[in-house]
């Protein structure tokens, strides 16, 4: 009880305080509340991970019934991820927002919302009551919406925000339908009712119910084709909010899906296959579109879709493992998914934060205008590089670890499967490999174009590294990325309890990762260590050898051309040109082009704008048609007061008359029946 009180009271006090104190104290108040929430809940989360579940029943209200709070190992794992991202993101955000210190009122709201977002995300992990869950979900959606539109004077930002708001509510709609369905059948809003409902009803009904929840959570997580809000919302939000959104907000969708897998007893093979197919499509499609993007944050947003796909592959494998009673596959699948959730929250938030640094230094995110930042912003460059290697799934960093676990699971699945699933596993492997290769291409492009080479654009203002305090939290994230890469065993041990929750659903024997996967991981970390030692050793030798040699610094070799300009560098578009031609049928690229003509060429230009084909067919096309249809009723809204009064009267009359009419008709029917 004391925990819940602290959890609610201290942030509440801080929020009340924020509008009335000075700028510096506002920051302290916000960060203090974030810290309080983090400390209190991290304690409970660690307890949960150790197997001591926290359980508390609040009286609740007349409508909702008693509200049960429960923190098990799964909640604990996600709470820790959320807390870490908010602690680093909050510190980063405080310094990031100094650039906006003149907008006092805006900052008040932003600070309060930041705390609310944190609190709501945390409580979503613990609440076991549908109505309370929906309320917390709504608080989360609204505070995220208001945080996104911090720069609301920009049209694009508002549009992105409203897009997010609408899609969040579509997601809530699906969740609500699912909860109402269960509550209508069982009369209870407690989550345990969902479990008992699925146990007592047929497989098809449970599957339908699961799909309702899955759709709702998938919109939040950003599975293709529900991903269309992500590439708008992420670039519009301030950097720390984008980092948090991509790091943890979309993960709450993953949490929801995992929770429903625990609660709803369905045919896990079917569910796993559905999730697996959607995930492979999400993963490949996300990264394929990411490569085309010119806006750094939009590029990262598409990568979130890709990584959700990778997490989904893990969940799908885990479910299939549950369905086929294969404890190894199941444990490796869920472990890969959960570890990748953590990994993605780390490197993706780091990437968004460094992108924020780039934005603050240059005031642009258009990668065609950037270049050569490594000389102006060396620390940001190194941090971005670490995150880029990690997200490409390359050793020795953490991205490889989770992908390795998934591969191990996949090859294990392959050994035992029959022909149908064999082809499935082969395609999953191809998908995962392609995702890796494409991610490498995307991040060599992004890193190379933004940070390396010569500046492609001269800025009016001086470009320089941001404040050290703003970079400090990023080092913590980078350290954790390296740490997981080198010592994955510790984290797999932490994952034993959460994974046991899943294997326990079908009473599969699973006690630890020893014997299936972890030994290989220890060797991986040893090999990674070799790699690092070798690199350091060689760098040392190189330094020693070159010490006495003549070192010259001369212009880049340009085949004899002596007057190069930054314009002759390879641009981001040219880097991916062959690729975008090869896969042309998947993309929708708008082109504005004026070709070079004549012997003495005049001005020419080429402008490309990549668009999302799925968005066109899944969102734009239905909406245009709906608009056309609804436009036919435009005459109703004609602006004449008399008509509106008439509508009002018609409404009141019909409200009164319809029941009377109904009764009369029924009486008549009864009368006929008696005849």
């Amino acid at each position, binding site marked *: 009880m004391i925990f819940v009180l602290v959890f609610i009271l201290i942030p509440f006090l801080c929020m009340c305080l924020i509008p009335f104190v000075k700028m510096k104290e506002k920051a302290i108040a916000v960060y203090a509340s974030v810290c309080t929430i983090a400390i209190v809940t991290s304690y409970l989360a660690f307890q949960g991970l150790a197997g001591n579940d926290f359980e508390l029943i609040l009286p609740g209200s007349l409508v909702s019934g008693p509200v049960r709070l429960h923190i098990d190992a799964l909640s604990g794992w996600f709470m820790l991820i959320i807390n870490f991202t908010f602690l680093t993101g909050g510190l980063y955000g405080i310094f990031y927002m100094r650039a906006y210190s003149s907008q006092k009122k805006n900052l008040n709201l932003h600070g309060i919302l930041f705390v609310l977002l944190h609190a709501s995300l945390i409580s979503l992990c613990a609440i076991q009551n549908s109505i309370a869950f929906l309320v917390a979900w709504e608080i989360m959606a609204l505070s995220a919406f208001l945080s996104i539109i911090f720069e609301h004077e920009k049209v694009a930002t508002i549009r992105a925000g409203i897009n997010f708001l609408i899609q969040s509510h579509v997601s809530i709609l699906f969740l609500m339908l699912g909860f109402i369905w269960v509550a209508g059948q069982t009369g209870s809003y407690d989550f345990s009712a969902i479990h008992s409902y699925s146990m007592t009803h047929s497989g098809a009904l449970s599957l339908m119910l699961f799909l309702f929840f899955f759709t709702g959570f998938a919109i939040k997580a950003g599975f293709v084709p529900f991903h269309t809000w992500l590439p708008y919302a992420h670039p519009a939000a301030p950097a720390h909010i984008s980092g948090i959104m991509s790091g943890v907000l979309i993960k709450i969708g993953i949490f929801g899906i995992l929770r429903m897998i625990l609660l709803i007893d369905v045919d896990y093979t079917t569910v796993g296959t559905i999730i697996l197919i959607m995930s492979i499509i999400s993963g490949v499609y996300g990264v394929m579109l990411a490569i085309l993007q010119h806006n750094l944050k939009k590029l990262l947003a598409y990568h979130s879709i890709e990584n959700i796909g990778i997490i989904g592959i893990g969940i799908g494998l885990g479910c299939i493992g549950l369905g086929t009673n294969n404890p190894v596959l199941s444990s490796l699948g869920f472990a890969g998914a959960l570890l990748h959730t953590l990994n993605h929250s780390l490197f993706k938030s780091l990437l968004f934060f460094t992108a924020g640094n780039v934005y603050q230094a240059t005031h642009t995110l258009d990668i065609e205008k950037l270049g050569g930042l490594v000389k102006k912003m060396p620390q940001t460059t190194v941090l971005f590089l670490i995150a880029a290697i990690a997200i490409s799934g390359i050793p020795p960093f953490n991205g490889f670890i989770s992908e390795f676990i998934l591969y191990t699971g996949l090859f294990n699945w392959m050994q035992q499967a029959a022909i149908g699933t064999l082809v499935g596993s082969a395609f999953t492997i191809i998908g995962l490999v392609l995702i890796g290769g494409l991610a490498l291409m995307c991040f060599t492009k992004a890193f190379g174009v933004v940070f390396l080479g010569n500046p492609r654009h001269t800025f009016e203002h001086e470009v320089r590294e941001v404040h050290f305090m703003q970079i400090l939290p990023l080092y913590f994230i980078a350290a954790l990325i390296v740490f997981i890469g080198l010592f994955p065993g510790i984290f797999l041990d932490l994952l034993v309890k959460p994974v046991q929750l899943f294997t326990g659903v079908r009473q599969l024997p699973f006690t630890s990762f020893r014997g299936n996967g972890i030994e290989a991981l220890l060797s991986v970390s040893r090999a990674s260590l070799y790699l690092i030692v070798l690199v350091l050793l060689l760098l040392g030798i190189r330094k020693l050898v070159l010490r006495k040699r003549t070192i010259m610094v001369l212009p880049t070799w340009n085949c004899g051309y002596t007057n190069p300009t930054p314009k002759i560098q*390879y641009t981001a578009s040219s880097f991916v040109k062959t*690729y975008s031609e090869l896969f042309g049928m998947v993309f929708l690229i708008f082109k504005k082009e004026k070709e070079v003509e004549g012997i003495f060429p005049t001005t020419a230009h080429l402008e490309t704008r990549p668009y999302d084909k799925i968005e066109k067919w899944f969102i734009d096309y239905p909406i245009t048609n709906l608009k056309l249809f609804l436009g036919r009723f435009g005459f109703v809204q004609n602006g004449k007061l008399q008509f509106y009064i008439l509508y009002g009267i018609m409404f009141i009359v019909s409200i009164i008359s319809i029941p009377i009419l109904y009764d009369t008709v029924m009486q008549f029917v009864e009368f006929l029946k008696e005849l």
Partner: protein
Amino acid sequence: MLSLLLIILAATFFTGIIIRTKSIASGRKGPGIFQPLKDVMRLFKKGAVYSETSSFVFRIAPTIYFSSVFVAMLVVPFGQSKGLISFNGDFIFFAYVLGLGKFFSIIGAMDTGSSFEGMGASREALYSMFAEPAFFILMGSLALMTGHTSFQDIFSTLHLGSSITYALGVLGAFVFLMIAMIENSRMPIDDPKTHLELTMVHEVMILDNSGFDLGLILTAGYLKFAVYGAIIFNLFSGSIPYEYAIPLFFVMQVFLAVVVGIIESFMARSRMNHNAQFIVVLSSVAILIFFGALLVSGKFI
């Protein structure tokens, strides 16, 4: 440990033999087979010239590239003897650690701000992406056939069942040889002897490297060839005792080098925009092996 020594030994003459074969095929005498080694030794003794555009990335990239190839080499076994590092799923590590090298060689090229090097980088990124599925499908099918997921276990149990596996081994050798050609930027994907920057892939990426760094990059290339040669040898070696296996290994490496030299002498490079198709064909061959593996393991119903 044995494989490490053998690969390093093979690497000393592999590229030399390729060059010698090409010389003889074109009617020249050609340099000695240790000439590439001497070139590298000379490079190690030189100073360095750096582009003024480049940053620390350019300076560390060759080292990391070399290290990645070296660590990848450690997981390759030799017949019954394990690599220095061996674990379940080590071939995944092998592919991904080579990816680290690629990542750095690409960004190293981007760091010079040169138009040509960006071009090479872009091509390298694309081709290596296409080559990877073939590797994984091939190794996946071998894993399926043998029921193991580490290089050493796969190779040592490959031929215990039936002799059809040797047929698959030949197909596998073809795929591995082609992957080696792609990875080392040889014909028909890339021509190391071309003199036009616009048509280069790998060569253009290292235009600005010199001295020690260039030496590391070249050495890594020699090692890579020998590594793939060793993997191809492993496809057939099975449980041959060492006294035969070690001479056979060198015979095989020489044979492969001659094959590469002959391919390069009598084959034109593909057009740049046909390269992608060529590599996808490779994946199809790998899928063929996959179905072959299904047949062998009796899972094809």
